[in-house]
């Protein structure tokens, strides 16, 4: 008798079908070669064979690129304001440990002082089914941030690929109840658990890129005013902002209105510290120079967020390295910080 369950890979479709009764199920999906989380079509579970990680992180399911905050109508009595109803319950199948951790990091921002009225209901209504990452990318460095690619406690259930089956570890009460109702699940044996342990260990060893977080926190503040260094590392950045949009922990946003014939809406949308307009005021702009913006991004993640919340706002998912059009590499920037 073990503490884990297991499920045959060929039964995943059936399991997702059961869960579809209660939840909108999201799985890794590929369109034109780009992997992202998308609504399950009810049949295809092919991702099991090709999935490494999605291009767009799971944060987009909770903090969408663009979201209606409220809509309004101007009538004789003045404005009538309506809030959007968001009651859909999402089940995300296959979230990687790095992206699950990023949600725990975002929770800190969205619960500090004020409860975010858009992010939190989505979070509270969601179920996360983690899937261990067995083929990390060269750009991944999650292990330096205290994350194991095939283990997570930031999810409700954690799955590990043990061949023809997934081993299922119950992490939360919510996950436990969910798996208790599933019909295709069986008890795992001690041999299954031993196999999963090997798989997890092997996955950990495959993450070879590293950063030294202790050295970084010691050096970052002292080299904050080293303009030469920041100008050098910022030189090739083209301020496209893709590193911030695809970063699972970046949360900066803008608020804008739209109006068509007395009816309108206010939207929250992703914004980026890479853009000079982000900080622009009518008469001044404190971060008009590119090196200041690059410094802001690095220092926010590795110095300011830890000062405010006690944790680094990076999960080592490597997206900002893999997907940068000019191959800017944050690990190199952090590695070569002058003392």
């Amino acid at each position, binding site marked *: 008798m073990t503490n884990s369950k297991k499920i045959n890979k060929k039964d995943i479709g059936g399991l997702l079908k059961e869960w579809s009764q209660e939840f909108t199920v999201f799985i890794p999906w590929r369109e034109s070669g780009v992997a992202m989380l998308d609504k399950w079509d009810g049949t295809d579970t092919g991702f099991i064979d090709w999935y490494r990680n999605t291009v767009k992180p799971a944060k987009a399911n909770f903090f969408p690129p663009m979201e209606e*905050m409220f809509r309004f109508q101007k009538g004789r009595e003045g404005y009538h304001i309506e*809030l959007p109803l968001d009651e859909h319950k999402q089940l995300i199948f296959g979230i990687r440990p790095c992206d699950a951790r990023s949600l725990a990091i975002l929770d800190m921002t969205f619960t500090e002082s*004020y409860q975010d*009225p858009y992010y939190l209901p989505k979070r509270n209504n969601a179920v996360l089914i983690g899937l261990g990452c067995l083929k990390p990318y060269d750009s991944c460095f999650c292990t330096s941030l205290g994350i194991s690619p095939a283990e997570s406690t930031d999810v409700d259930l954690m799955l590990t690929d043990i061949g023809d089956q997934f081993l299922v570890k119950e992490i939360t009460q919510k996950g436990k109840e969910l798996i208790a109702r599933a019909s295709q699940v069986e008890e795992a044996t001690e041999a299954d658990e031993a196999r999963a342990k090997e798989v997890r260990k092997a996955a950990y060893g495959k993450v070879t890129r590293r950063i030294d977080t202790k050295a970084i926190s010691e050096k970052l503040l002292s080299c904050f005013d080293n303009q030469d260094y920041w100008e050098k590392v910022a030189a090739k950045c083209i301020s496209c902002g893709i590193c911030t949009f695809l970063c699972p922990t970046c949360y900066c946003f803008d608020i804008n209105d739209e*109006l068509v014939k007395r009816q*309108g809406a206010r939207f929250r949308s992703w914004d980026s510290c890479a853009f000079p307009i982000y900080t622009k005021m009518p008469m001044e702009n404190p971060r008009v120079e590119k090196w200041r913006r690059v410094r802001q991004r690095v220092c926010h993640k590795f110095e300011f967020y830890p000062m*405010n919340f006690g944790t680094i706002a990076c999960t080592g998912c490597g997206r900002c390295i893999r997907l940068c059009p000019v191959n800017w590499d944050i690990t190199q920037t952090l590695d070569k910080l002058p003392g």
Partner: protein
Amino acid sequence: MTSVTDISHGKEFLARGNVYLPHIVVIDKIIDETYDTRTFHFNFKDEKLREEFTFDSGQFAEYSVLGIGEAPFCISSSPTRSDHLEFTVRRVGRVTNALHRLGVGAEIGFRGAYGNSFPLNLLQGKNLVFVAGGIGLAPLRSLIWNVIDNRDRYKKIDIIYGARSPADLCFKYDLDTWDEDKTVNMVTTVDKGDESWTGREGFVPQILEQVAPSATNAVAIVCGPPIMIRFTFPVLEKLGFTPEQMITTLEKRMKCGIGKCGRCNIGNLYVCRDGPVFTYAQIKGFVSSEY
């Protein structure tokens, strides 16, 4: 003055519990301060909120013309005069232009009050030196009226206020009242006068040096364009003010007003949440000079 962690100051005025949802307020009066600056007097549409709403001098709010957008401005009236609220806007961008197109009776969105405030407990029993330039008088004006309405709690009051030209002076009606007030030393200056100008000429920091208020048991409260603030601090230091005796309020692009949208940070601090009121001692201790 420590940084503020409970940014709501224990006072929650959230519309339907949603921090991003604006309250509707109605403009009751519009005053042309200068050719490009207007003061709007307004009140909550909701009667209950009219009674209950409170704020402190130095706090700001997010004002919106629905359909155009939202922008932060300080509350320029004093909490001691609570029959209505005021804010003052210079016409420079999309939202400010839309605000200037509004007439009396127009409804706008209001979220707030946000940020910390001037430390009244620290100012009590002190000589106060107000140094302001242009529209920078708006946040200080809230404090000045607050102090005048509780005159016996404070000692000497000096107000040094300047603008680029006589046409750029804001709150002329207040300047006249303070000038007539025997308990206040009101000094008005312009960078360059015109034919009809009979008052002082000169930049605010220079005039401050001439007026030379004593630093003994005093606090200086400074607000104006960044260039004026940068030249005022050294003059105050020369007059013997310590960085702890100098207070200012900073301006940044602030979209959310509650330390979330990210853009108004100076190091790990957010001007909207941990400020906008800071001592010069705090500013000197900032990680970054990006203010």
